[in-house]
């Protein structure tokens, strides 16, 4: 009842909530991250436009990482084509078919983990749905975000999709073997666009066809994985010491 004058009208009260609308997803993402951390698995969220060369990049990665146990979750609206390609390339994979959803979320990843023996892996690739918008806003529990950007996409893509590039830890400029046929594409302009959208711009030029840059990308992964394993060991030591 209205307490101001006692008139009997219902009272309208403002309630300050300050609730992040992604909180539910972020909770599940933290759960996934804890799992990856505990088992020393480096989880890589690989994003990019449809056709930017994500699957070909992973196939090329598998050819240079014989000493690693790789696995992948592969998101698409329909078909398990990418997961089958990755299986054939020696990366055990599980498809996540999203139906009409344009991105993966932490819950979809968590559910798919039940079907993939991921605990023994060194590295888990999560190949997101091809899309430069929605995947960027959903934390999946990954350690790093990598964006594949093909040279054929034009040099102002980062300026057009700043949300995606802001979240990237690394951008892989793919299909660089095509550069001689694309005189209008200026790599310096791509680098400039990245400097205006990524606080710590980091670009590696790669070609899944010629193998250019794949070693550099694998070295980057190796460094990130060492950092993850060290962090995991530190956490374990701290936990033991506390216990």
């Amino acid at each position: 009842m209205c307490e101001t004058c006692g008139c009997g009208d219902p009272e309208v009260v403002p309630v300050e909530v300050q609730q992040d609308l992604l909180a539910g997803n972020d909770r599940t993402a933290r759960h996934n991250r804890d799992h990856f951390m505990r088992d020393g698995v480096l989880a890589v969220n690989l994003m990019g436009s449809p056709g930017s060369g994500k699957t070909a990049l992973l196939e090329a990665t598998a050819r240079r990482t014989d000493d690693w146990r790789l696995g992948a979750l592969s998101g698409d609206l329909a078909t398990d084509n990418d997961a089958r390609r990755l299986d054939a390339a020696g990366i055990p994979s599980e498809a996540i078919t999203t139906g009409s959803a344009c991105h993966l979320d932490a819950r979809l990843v968590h559910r798919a983990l039940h079907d993939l023996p991921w605990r023994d892996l060194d590295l888990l690739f999560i190949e997101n749905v091809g899309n430069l918008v929605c995947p960027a806003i959903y934390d999946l529990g990954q350690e790093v975000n990598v964006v594949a950007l093909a040279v054929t996409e034009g040099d102002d893509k980062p300026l057009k999709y700043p949300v995606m590039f802001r979240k990237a830890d690394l951008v892989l400029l793919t299909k660089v073997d095509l550069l001689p046929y694309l005189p209008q594409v200026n790599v310096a302009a791509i680098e400039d666009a990245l400097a205006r959208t990524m606080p710590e711009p980091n670009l590696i030029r790669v070609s899944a066809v010629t193998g250019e840059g794949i070693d550099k990308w694998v070295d980057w992964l190796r460094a990130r994985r060492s950092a993850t394993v060290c962090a995991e060991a530190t956490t374990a030591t701290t936990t033991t010491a506390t216990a």
Partner: protein
Amino acid sequence: MHEYSLIQSLLDVVDAEARSRGATAVHHLRVQVGELSGVETELLASAYELFREHTSCAGADLEIVPVPARWGCPDCGAEIVRGDVLRCAACARPAQLETGDEILLERIEMEVA
């Protein structure tokens, strides 16, 4: 079209709040949407119109407050001019996003008996 799933979680949060406070009606919601949150405010508004029927928000207005992106230097606090390289000209430190990535239900106005 992640705006639809965001509206679903908005309705869930409002419903839980309204229930826990014994509200008889919800009048108004205020949501902050950052420029770099990846959310399209018009799509969010139309998703809300579509989904609010038969929920505790059926009679509630949705106010969307856009929050501009603001980048600054984490060391000296200098603001990075919009469109510039995201690195402090003075300290050379990578810029930090200070505002502009929020997707936040800020306030609910509800009627209590």
